[in-house]
């Protein structure tokens, strides 16, 4: 079965663990995003899979074959580098067929495959140019072409869109996604941009400090974050995570999520799940930001801040007194110490809110 399987992968550099017991599996023709803040070990994980670094322990399987000890060239995968790594002294065509010519593929076959790839990526008119004569988006497509022409079942992409401007980035997002679908490739895509991961991936593996924090489909990470880290990382603006203090509890909404255990509980609520209303948690509007389709209002409730997302233009002035409400079902609860998701302590009381 084509796909990547990683089992308890560890990579250490002089005592620090960049990758710490990372395990995951990708399905056939799946588009998987390896997401996380910078320094979380996502790029290292990708380089381990590519064979550009060697792991301290753990196994890597590609298409059902153990490749942990194999050199990069024997792993049957292709890769797009963050910097594209195009050879500056070769033309676009030479860059794309580089791997084929190294492997001694017949010239006629090379040209046939080059023509097909060039057409697929609309590079046909640029084949004689040098990489330095191309725009960022075109260079990106050449790098993709060099990866795709190998026709390997697995393709790795290391932050391939980070060097492009916003407009081009969203174009390339769709382009890469549709290519992946059409060619039935397994793609592992490293990114620090959660929007990119959410919009493109079948599945997201969110990493933090070298460990997998949560892995699942985009909606799972969004709707059921496994920890406060995931809750804050996924979604723009991020989820409100507030301490469930006694002042909060005394307010109308707070009493539906009482603290039963001795350890303090955090409550998470998405900005779009909060509504302004006539009753509820008392708060004061601090500021608002307008994004076109919606606006985000920052409210101060007691000593904590909450973001509220409402459709259209902001309607409230700074300093206005408001009340906030939300459905009890849209609240998430996390253990304050570990940050991990926990069940709402007392179910019978939550019913009142809904």
């Amino acid at each position, binding site marked *: 079965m084509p796909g990547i399987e990683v089992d308890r992968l560890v990579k250490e550099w002089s005592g620090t663990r960049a990758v710490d017991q990372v395990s995951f599996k990708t399905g056939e023709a799946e588009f998987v995003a390896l997401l996380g803040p910078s320094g979380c070990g996502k790029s290292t994980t990708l380089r381990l899979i590519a064979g550009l670094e060697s792991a301290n322990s753990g196994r890597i399987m590609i298409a059902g074959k153990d490749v942990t000890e194999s050199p990069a*060239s024997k792993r049957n995968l292709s890769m797009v580098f963050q910097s594209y790594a195009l*050879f*500056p*002294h070769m033309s676009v065509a030479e860059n794309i067929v*580089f791997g084929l010519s*190294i492997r001694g593929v017949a010239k006629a076959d090379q040209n046939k495959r080059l023509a097909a790839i060039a057409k697929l990526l609309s590079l046909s008119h640029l084949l004689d140019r040098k990489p330095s004569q191309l725009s960022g988006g075109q260079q990106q497509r050449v790098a993709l072409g060099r990866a795709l022409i190998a026709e390997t079942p697995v393709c790795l992409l290391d932050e391939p869109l980070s060097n492009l401007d916003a407009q081009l980035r969203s174009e390339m997002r769709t382009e890469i996604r549709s290519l992946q679908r059409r060619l039935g490739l397994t793609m592992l895509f490293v990114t620090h941009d959660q929007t990119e991961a959410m919009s493109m991936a079948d599945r997201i593996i969110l990493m933090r400090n070298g460990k997998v924090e949560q892995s699942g489909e985009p909606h799972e990470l969004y709707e059921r974050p496994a920890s406060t880290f995931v809750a804050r990382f996924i979604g723009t603006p991020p989820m409100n995570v507030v301490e469930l203090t006694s002042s909060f509890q005394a307010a109308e909404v707070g009493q539906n999520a009482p603290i039963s255990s001795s350890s303090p509980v955090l409550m998470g609520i998405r900005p779009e799940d909060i509504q302004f209303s006539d009753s509820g948690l008392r708060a004061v509007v601090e500021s608002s930001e307008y994004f076109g389709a919606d606006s985000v209002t920052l409210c101060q409730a007691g000593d904590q801040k909450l973001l509220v997302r409402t459709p259209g233009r902001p309607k409230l002035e700074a300093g206005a007194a408001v009340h906030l409400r939300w459905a009890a079902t849209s609240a998430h609860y996390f253990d304050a110490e570990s940050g991990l998701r926990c069940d709402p302590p007392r179910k019978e009381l939550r019913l009142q809110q809904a």
Partner: protein
Amino acid sequence: MKASRNAIYGGLLLLPAAILLWTFTFQPILTTIYHSLFSTPRGRRPAVFIGLDHYETMIADPVFWRAVSNNLVYALTTVPLSMGLALAMALLINAKIRGQALVRMAYFTPTVLPMVAIANIWLFFYAPDYGLIDQLLRPFGLSGNNWLGNPETALPALIVITIWKEAGFFMIFYLAALQQISPSLLEAADLEGASPWQRFRRVVFPLLMPTTLFVSINAVIGAFRLVDHVVAMTKGGPDNATTLLLFYIYQVGFSFWDTGYAAALTVVLLAVLMLIALYQFGYADKRIHYR
């Protein structure tokens, strides 16, 4: 108004360098060309205009042709060999080996030494019988060679010294260029299944071409310019076997005091060096730079 002001500032800023260049480079060149058209003044006989007489003498001068052919042999051997050695040393040092700093210093040492000091070291190496090379050859019954005294081996002996001295210097340029190559390019080549040789041949070497060009120009110019060891070791002998162009100019000018002829020889040397420079800037430069 403002533009002319800028022009004045610009001109003033350029002036010091321009004066130096003119006084010590262009004026002497023009003077040399001028003198090459006059006879050498001797005693009460002043210099007279003789046109291209010196150049005609030159064409008929067997020592001049010997110097030219010596210099060609010298350039065609020292340049490629020292560059090849430099590249090999740079690749070796750039690979992650232990004691890298030590090896780099060792390779660079000959470059730091003055040519005259080097000549002294090698005079001992080449000395017949008690010299280092002869001592090493003695067990094989091959001693008793006068490396510098034999017309057959004198020039090759100087060539070896030059390669030994220059390679470390060129290595520094190659090393700098190698360290400029983005590691992801090499990783991309690895990922595509390139062997170390293919990686060198198809990626590393082409990316080093600008450096190779730069180094080769410097090496060729050096081959026409570096004659300290000839002066210190062989004085052009035996039988002009080690006479290089610049040494011949020195001999004609300051041993024979034939300054007019020396000027004509200098003009020829300058023309050769200028052609090399033109080749660099006009032709090779455009073909090799990728950006």
